[in-house]
């Protein structure tokens, strides 16, 4: 497994490289310059571009940028030359991550709970309700959900604040909007896989040896049912951790997503690239961790790994 991990890390770095290259050239295709503003004359723009080295051949710029990235320097923001790109990320990511992790926790808890209920409930209407609700929740796009929540709970009912992220109460709406899809997905997966596990002989045998139903589900069946679920939670958590442009814009949360949207409209080359690299790295690392975790949870691969080391 160690070799596998190395291989995955290397391919991860390779994908990052491809990502940076493609983004670098794509961004330059966007017409206009980062420094073009209404009142700024062409001469001034040119002078500033010269200062930042933007007049040099594209290849030279690309190579010098790559060199900087390898050294760990993402450069300064063109829009706000006083701050480093890495500082912006360091400021915005904790905000995004805090919402993302909360939403993830909510989805996992809610999804698992509802999924178990769906798998074990004897009442048909409960099962149908959960299926239908899940389908609805998965079908609503997050921007629609966000706007709807905003309209109902803060504009009409005025129960919850509409923007900012000052207190725990502020978290409720954006987290709910973000958690819609993943919790529906987890509910469906847990419901199906657990339903399948409960049909298996070891569950019957566990009942024959006198274990209670709750015990069997929590300590036996869920453990086996969770592997495919975990495989799906990986990518989902990656998307939650890199921030949602839509939800962050609607609730005016100063997170990564909003920075990203801003950087594109401003043609802030370094910021776009810096954010791309960061998000790409998060996605790759989270997926790697999920895969390793899944392999580790399966006793057969784990044993094989141990023997390999021994």
């Amino acid at each position, binding site marked *: 497994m160690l070799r596998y991990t190395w291989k995955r890390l290397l391919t991860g770095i390779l994908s990052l490289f491809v990502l940076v290259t493609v983004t670098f050239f794509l961004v330059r295709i966007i017409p206009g310059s980062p420094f073009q503003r209404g009142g700024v004359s062409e001469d001034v723009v040119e002078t500033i571009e010269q200062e930042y080295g933007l007049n040099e051949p594209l290849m030279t710029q690309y190579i010098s940028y790559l060199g900087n990235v390898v050294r760990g320097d993402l450069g300064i923001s063109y829009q706000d030359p006083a701050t480093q790109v890495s500082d912006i990320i360091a400021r915005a990511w904790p905000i995004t991550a805090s919402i993302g992790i909360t939403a993830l926790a909510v989805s996992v808890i809610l999804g698992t709970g509802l999924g178990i209920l769906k798998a074990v409930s004897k009442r048909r209407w409960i099962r149908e309700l959960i299926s239908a609700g899940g389908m609805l929740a998965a079908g609503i796009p997050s921007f629609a959900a966000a706007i709807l929540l905003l309209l109902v709970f803060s504009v009409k009912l005025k129960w919850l604040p509409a923007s900012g992220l000052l207190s725990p109460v502020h978290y409720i709406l954006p987290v709910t909007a973000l958690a819609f899809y993943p919790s529906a997905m987890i509910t469906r997966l847990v419901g199906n896989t657990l339903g399948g596990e409960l049909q298996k002989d*070891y569950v019957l*045998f566990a009942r*024959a*040896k*006198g*274990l209670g139903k709750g015990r069997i589900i929590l300590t036996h069946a869920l*453990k086996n049912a969770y592997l495919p679920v975990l495989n799906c939670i990986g990518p989902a958590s990656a998307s939650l951790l890199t921030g949602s442009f839509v939800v962050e814009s609607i609730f005016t949360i100063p997170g990564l997503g909003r920075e990203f949207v801003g950087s594109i409209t401003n043609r802030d080359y370094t910021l776009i690239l810096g954010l791309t690299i960061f998000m790409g790295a998060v996605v790759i690392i989270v997926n790697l961790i999920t895969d390793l975790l899944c392999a580790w949870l399966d*006793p057969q691969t784990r044993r094989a790994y141990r023997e390999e080391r021994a």
Partner: protein
Amino acid sequence: MSVLDVRNLSVQYLTENGASEIVKDISFKVEKGEIAGLVGESGSGKSTAMLAVMGLLENRAQIRAERITISGEKPVPGQNAAMIFQDSLSCLNPSVKIGRQLRETVQARRKCSRKEAAARAEELLDLTGIRNPALRMRQYPFELSGGMRQRVVLAIALACEPELIIADEPTTALDALVQAQILLLFKRIVKETGTSMLLVSHDMGVTAAMCSRVYVMHSGRIVEHGTVEDIFYSPVEEYTRRLLEDARGGRLTVHRDGNTENAAGKTGNAYGNPPLLQMEHVTKIFDESEGVRDLSLEIRRGEILALVGESGSGKTTAARILTGMLREDSGILRYRGDELGQDRRMDAFGGSVQMVFQDPYASLNPCLTVREALKEALEASGQRVNGTKRCRSERQRSSSYSREKGRMAEKIDRMLRLTGLSPEDADRYPRDFSGGQRQRIGIARALIVEPEILVCDEALSSLDATTREQILELIFRIQRKIGFACLFISHDMHVVRRISDRIAVMYGGRIVETGETKKVCSDPWHPYTKQLIEAVPEPDPLRAVKIKAAPGKDGTEMVRYGCPFAGRCGYALECCGEEIPESYSFDGREVSCFLYSDRHSGRRSRDYRMTSQI
């Protein structure tokens, strides 16, 4: 008072077509400290009745009973009653360590600390004959052999400290020697703990060996009951008689001994036919514990050759090399006398070697209809056999296309009828068929290309008893009709004895004995063959009590020096641990054992007739 007392138990399922009654008004008892038996074919409602007694049936089932009690009380799973199932692998949670699965049972039964429970768990593993229990506690089910897992399952049942253990086909999935060990263990445990046991089985031999009283169940009813002697020596019911007759291996052997059936067939006695496929000194080693070593084997035209041996003895490896699916490390393969190189093997065979696999569920592509699957097989082999025909011009091909298509459809119809399916089945998907029907499809797929050799790798072992019987007869009948050679791999001595002409016994990657089935089974020469045959309980209570088990040892070990069986052999000589016996042949029988060497019994005159030395 009886331990288990069931009176007038009925179970019915409500389906769309009304209620269907699976168990019809049955009553039975189990006395204290006895092993009672419940026999019947699969589908007779045995398992349903047992689950109903345990209160483990799903909610759809309606249970009616005047009385179900264990020592006067309601059965509570895990308290006064425990149950053991057939497949020990699927009964144990694959991702939970053995230790925890045992410990939680102990703790569910009575309040005790984790440490006490662990100590009790180790004690139970020790009681069920598992060596080094502390190590086993830390392992997962997949790390244990089948026999060991069944011991663990028994230990879990014992952890419930039940008054009654219901064992539902507990040894059906195990090979003969391991089955004998487990059966003896059951007997010992019942004696030592005073638990009662209800043994549910389709195997008359097992029932005869184990039980004091027997209930015979047939399509939901108990048709006969009595002491084991009554049932086996003076059965009253027609159904019981038929079960016994089947178990004594009547039918298939009658046909072949009497030769009445065979006379019309293409092959009379396959014995002495020229060899079709030969393996000479083939070795293939995966790691230290598996593979085949210096294996020589020949399959003759028109014969059924059985390859038997316990799991891990190299049967499947031998078959894979033979079919060209695996490359040998060294050795020679001859087909019709010509040596076959490794690269050309598949081409040289064309469609002439076909396989039927163990798992009928996994071996059929769920996306192909039966017709497509058969057509694919036909096309795949046709391309190789008629390699030159492919060069025909386009026009020729298109003109003969429809004709060929018609021929193909006709062939598929014929093959489906031959295997007991109907031509209408051709356009259905595998999911529409039961396990036995799927195995028929597998056989049809193999036979449609008219192979010279059919390899059946444990083709019956995933089927239940009734279906097994049907498929066994099917293979036998078709083989006698068409006359292909068949390599029949199995761990089930019952089946092998009834179907094969010759038998080859494998142990530890080597062939230890070959010969005519009838001779080998009635008079085994190699000590291992003897153990194997004696381990199969006979459907005769007086003889079956003598059931013997080999000294308990978990699995086969590959021995680098000497005879692979030396460690388990009661007849081992000094030379057995140092040298590998070569194969000594006498009058059509071959045996690899020093007891038959010149060294042991001295030089013999030419007309000396070798007899069993054990």
